[in-house]
């Protein structure tokens, strides 16, 4: 590469109109280090380039730097970031410390054991891990299509007059406390599931093995449904924001090419917004993994691993909420702490997987010429 590359005068002058550059008199006041780059002349060897001032910050005393609004802001932000890390680290340390007794007794088998017996002191976390994951997956299966449909409808299909009320109503769902969802589920959702939905599922889908056994109403399916309702506002409102920022001309271009409404949404809108939508789903999943009270009220609280979604289950957050207040033995408490640790680890793993998913989704070109 020739040194001429560094000479801005040799650059083609179509990046910015001249009006955007600082006026000459202002340019003169720019500190020297800003102009160092420009003093490189054509034909200079790289070793002859003027050295930049080592670090201009070192020339100014520390306290003065603190007063500088830029540094102060930077420091404040760094502190905020550090706090988040420190809190996460402290949680991890505390969980490890307090669960050490259970760890010594059960070791790694704690995470794969399926017995939970406070009387005999046998503890295993597997049914709880299973319940947390399955109820969250059920919630996603129900919530994702619905939320995206709501978002697409609000941004691209619905009459302008309805836009605000619908958006407002979905966001209102997020403000309802989870115990209210739980009570509503017990008194409204569970009877509907038991009397209408579950018998129907058992009749037509029993062959899948997912819908067998007595229809209590209460169980994994009820928990997943409540969770779905709770995460719909999160996924749909973020997706809506993402869809809104898809440039209008993309839509117009698709329509101009003869796309139908549906093709336009699929090719021009959803394809552009997919990374943001996946992000919204991950946020919803995070909420589903940690939700406690509403799930506890309808999942049935039986630590078992059943293939049927109609059977009762148990989640990690639920068992901690249920048993922590009255747990007396040291090992019992320690086991509950280790459940907390398991929840922590599962959340991290799920987040890493989700991150990988975002990466695979966004790796491709943003828009393909044909929507195949």
């Amino acid at each position: 590469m020739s040194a001429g590359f560094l000479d801005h005068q040799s650059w083609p002058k179509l990046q910015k109109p001249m009006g955007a550059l600082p006026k000459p008199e202002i340019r003169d006041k720019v500190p020297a280090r800003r102009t160092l780059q420009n003093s490189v002349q054509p034909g200079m060897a790289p070793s002859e380039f003027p050295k930049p001032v080592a670090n201009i910050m070192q020339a100014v005393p520390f306290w003065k730097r603190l007063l500088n609004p830029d540094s102060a802001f930077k420091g404040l932000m760094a502190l905020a970031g550090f706090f988040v890390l420190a809190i996460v680290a402290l949680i991890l340390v505390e969980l490890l410390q307090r669960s050490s007794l259970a760890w010594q007794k059960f070791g790694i088998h704690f995470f794969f054991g399926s017995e939970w017996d406070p009387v005999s002191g046998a503890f295993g976390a597997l049914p709880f891990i299973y319940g947390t994951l399955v109820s969250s997956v059920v919630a996603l299966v129900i919530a994702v299509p619905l939320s995206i449909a709501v978002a697409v409808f609000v941004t691209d299909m619905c009459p302008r007059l309805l836009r605000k009320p619908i958006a407002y109503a979905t966001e209102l769902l997020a403000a309802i406390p989870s115990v209210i969802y739980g009570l509503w589920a017990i008194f409204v959702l569970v009877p509907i599931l038991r009397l209408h939905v579950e018998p129907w599922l058992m009749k037509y889908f029993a062959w899948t093995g997912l819908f067998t056994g007595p229809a209590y109403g209460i169980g994994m399916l009820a928990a997943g449904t409540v969770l779905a309702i709770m995460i719909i506002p999160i996924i749909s409102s973020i997706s809506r924001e993402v869809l809104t920022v898809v440039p209008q001309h993309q839509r117009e271009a698709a329509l101009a090419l003869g796309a139908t409404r549906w093709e336009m949404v699929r090719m021009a809108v959803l394809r552009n917004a997919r990374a943001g939508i996946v992000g919204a789903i991950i946020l919803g999943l995070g909420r589903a993994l940690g939700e406690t009270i509403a799930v506890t009220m309808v999942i049935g609280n039986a630590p078992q691993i059943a293939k049927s979604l109609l059977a009762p289950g148990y989640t990690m957050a639920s068992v901690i909420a249920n048993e922590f207040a009255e747990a007396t033995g040291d090992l019992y408490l320690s086991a509950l702490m280790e459940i907390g640790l398991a929840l922590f680890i599962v959340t991290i793993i799920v987040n890493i997987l989700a991150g990988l998913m975002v990466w695979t989704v966004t790796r491709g070109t943003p828009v393909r010429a044909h929507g195949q």
Partner: protein
Amino acid sequence: MNRVLPVLALLAISLSAAAQTRLNGAGATFPYPIYSKWFNEYHNMHSDIEINYQSIGSGGGIRQLQSGTVDFGASDMPLDDTKVKQMPTPILQLPTVLGAVVPAYDISGVTAELKFTPQILAGIYLGTITNWNDKAIAATNSGVSLPDKNIVVIHRSDGSGTTFVWTDYLSKVSSDWKSKVGSNTSVSWPVGLGAKGNEGVAGMIRQMDGSIGYVELIYALQNKITFGSVKNSSGTFIKASLESTTAAAASAKMASNDFRVSITNASGKEAYPISSFTYLLIPKQWKDNGKQKVFLDFLNWMLSDGQSMTTQLNYAPLPATVKEKELLALKEIK
């Protein structure tokens, strides 16, 4: 600022004057209504004394007492010797009131009150009796036509003293239960659905046809929930009531200074078999003499005048024999 300062000063003075002695306790949720009534009444009589009680659960109360963050604890379940040894000072475990746990059910078409034997209850909760038309249930409830319907078993999902009393009773009446499940505030249930709190269990029972669960007597009385009578160890079917609960405590044999007896399956003819004490956990040695005097005075009052307030709140009062023993045991608090 000139106006605020005197107000603040006044506030500070009034606060320090209002509560010269302040005691803190924490523990069981079951006796919380009666405890807060007692502490409130006592404060009305002695305006300079304030006793705070946090109903954070028995386990939490025990932990706080152990770490010395509260002056006294409260538990639905007496502490065993190993737990007592972990306490910083020796403690007196003092029964305050009695509770009972009742089998509640909902079977559509059945209006008659059901009778339960210990074998039926254990069988249902072990999962060996699964249908309401089971021979054992029919034999005890002759004259009641029970439907051919699966039994939906409901238990508490949150750790609780109620579960402890229920499983303690089942352990006493069924050797199978004792060896397979045992007794604790949470156990590994062989069958059934878990619901949170008395209200959760009651709500689920009301909704599900053919269901049975257990709730506190107080909760059942206040909410008019149907519950059955249980056969006690002298062979009579007793429906839970405040009187039959007190009767169970009266028939219990206890030492003069150790009140850690389980009164489930009590032998008295009038005794309701699924009853229990709830306890205050009081250090025997106090560092602060003032606090110790105040609390001792409160305990004396609680065991005499205080006991008459229990029935308004549907708690069963202590029988006279137990009260006398407890008043004597208070001498150990120094």
